[in-house]
């Protein structure tokens, strides 16, 4: 689904800022933040069906802060973000989904989780057969279904 309208420069700046607040870079796990240039470009390009609600979310963040989210100092951003999360609702869900779905498909993030950055098809995965002797006690049970008249 293509967005016929795009975020304003101010909205884009706020979105990047809140993405970084949501998922900051982390040296321990060697992962970028969601405000990383490549991840953020993916977020903006993938808003799709969530575009309107994300725009509402950005508007609400600005309203709660009394100015554009990106212009707030760090302490104020955290307070506004907490208030916004406490309100819940569709805009929060859309904003969260839009950031997370792109963050968790970035190659660097996937590698940090010990996974291969690839689509499932065509390689698939191996699923171990498991120990079917676990079924032995169930096999000995009497019939459980009810007889019907």
């Amino acid at each position, binding site marked *: 689904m293509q967005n016929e309208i795009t975020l304003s420069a101010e909205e884009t700046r706020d979105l990047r800022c809140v993405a970084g607040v*949501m998922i900051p870079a982390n040296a321990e796990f060697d992962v970028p933040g969601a405000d990383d240039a490549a991840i953020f470009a993916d977020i903006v390009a993938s808003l799709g069906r969530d575009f309107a609600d994300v725009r509402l979310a950005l508007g609400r963040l600005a309203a709660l802060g009394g100015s554009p989210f990106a212009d707030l100092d760090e302490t104020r951003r955290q307070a506004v973000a907490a208030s916004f999360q406490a309100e819940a609702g569709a805009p929060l869900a859309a904003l969260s989904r839009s950031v997370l779905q792109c*963050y968790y*498909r970035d190659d660097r993030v996937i590698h940090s989780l010990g996974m291969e950055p690839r689509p*499932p098809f065509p390689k698939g995965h191996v699923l171990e057969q498991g120990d079917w002797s676990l*079924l032995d006690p169930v096999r000995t049970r009497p019939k*459980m279904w009810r007889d*019907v008249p």
Partner: protein
Amino acid sequence: MNEMVDVLIIGSGASGAAAAWSLADTRMRILCLEQGDWMKPSDFPSNGRDWEARRYADFDISPNRRARDTDYPVNDDNSPMKVANFNAVGGGTVMYTAHYPRMHPSDFRVRTLDGVADDWPIDYATLEPFFAENDRMMGVSGLAGDPAYPPHQPPMPPLPLGKTGARYAKAMNKLGWHWWPSDTTIATTEYDGRAPCINLGHCTPGCAQGAKASTDITYWPHAIRAGVELRTRCRVREITTNEHGMASGAIYYDADGVEQFQPAEVVIVACNGIGTPRLLLNSASSRFPNGLANSSGLVGKNLMLHPWPQVFGYVDERVDGDRAPMLSIWSKEFYETDPNRDFVRGYTLQFTRGTGIVNEAITSAAAGRLPWGQDHHSTYRKLFHKRLQIGIACEDLPEEHNRVTLDPVLKDSHGIPAPRIDYVIAENCRRMMEHGIARAEEILTAAGATNLHAARVALNSPGHLLGTARMGDDPERSVVNAWGRSHDVKNLFIVDGSIWVTSGGVNPTSTIQALALYVADSMKKRLATLFD
């Protein structure tokens, strides 16, 4: 004008495909109209890196969010459970988990056995040969010998247990409760031109490998080779009737949006529990002012959706996650009525393998488990691929106030009135849900899971849309007779989930298809007297 056909089938999903294939051996001229497209394996999300994100977009289970131009909107604002479906050749079988339990014998006799709702006019024994035929056509993987069911023999071996299934199995053995590998329509060997499953992940939104059975790759190739015509991108607006009160055909919009009339000797409706009442109600006329086949007033009523709580927790090692089909095992320990409980009827426990990388993040963030800020990363790593999840398939009993009507405002892209859903979860079902949640928590604890959570109402319904044109012997208490023919219109048949009398506590596709084969077989046996 289009040439007359002997049989017009509306809808190419689970039931329409089965009916078309069965009737093909009559050599009648059979046409199926389908509002969606053929799907290609390369269309499915598992081909791309955005495969999980597309489950929230063009492969979302909600037609309202998906909003493809082949979809129609549904007003489900007045229901705690939202409608799930898919519109394409294969219908909902393109987008289902492929969990494939049959109804149980007791499910057809709930009035006699438990004093609630109504008995079906048919029974398990009547359907048994059609279950078996359908298992062969769809290709079922499973294991014979389940003590919860009368004997049957799935044609392929079951899906592997995997790490997750083994954990569940040990827990169930510790508790002394029944479990068995689920019957599924995911091929575990080569089968009728289908390749075996290679574990592409949770395959609800279609299988790029073609291992998961959907009727576009099972019934339809056989039906088309046998001479059935399938016309896509054809959205039916109404079924027409003649001066004798018989169905005369259908008016539909073709792929170019042009209104067409298709005359037919027999009309079979296969649009499932929302689409079928919508079409019948949209087919009102001076002769049938309350909608077609609706002298009972029951078209659209008794909607059953299967409330489906999900209970999940997290273990201390990575298990299967999304590296396999989500299906694993089932339990029927609490399926049959127990007079010591505070509810009648029962439920299936459906054990699933967890969830994917993106979906874990989205659902955990939505539930408040996954924080913003620096703690996000360490918290996520305690969740990722460590989830065990149990679904509780509760039997939903029929109640007339749960219904499908026509929305007075909302319309689809062709201007056809859209369906509106009014639905509440009954008290008996709520007690059943709480019982199931408590048992699932016991199981998860026995499996070593902590950090337990319960979602009492799933974000969307499981897409089980049942009961809105029920079958029965009494024309005042049912819409179709015991073999799917309308009481009011003698050449109009319904073969989908709308003809169910009660819902059982199982995923319905197996029984929907067995019923469709049974109705088609009944028609074939009565060809000379079909309209008497």
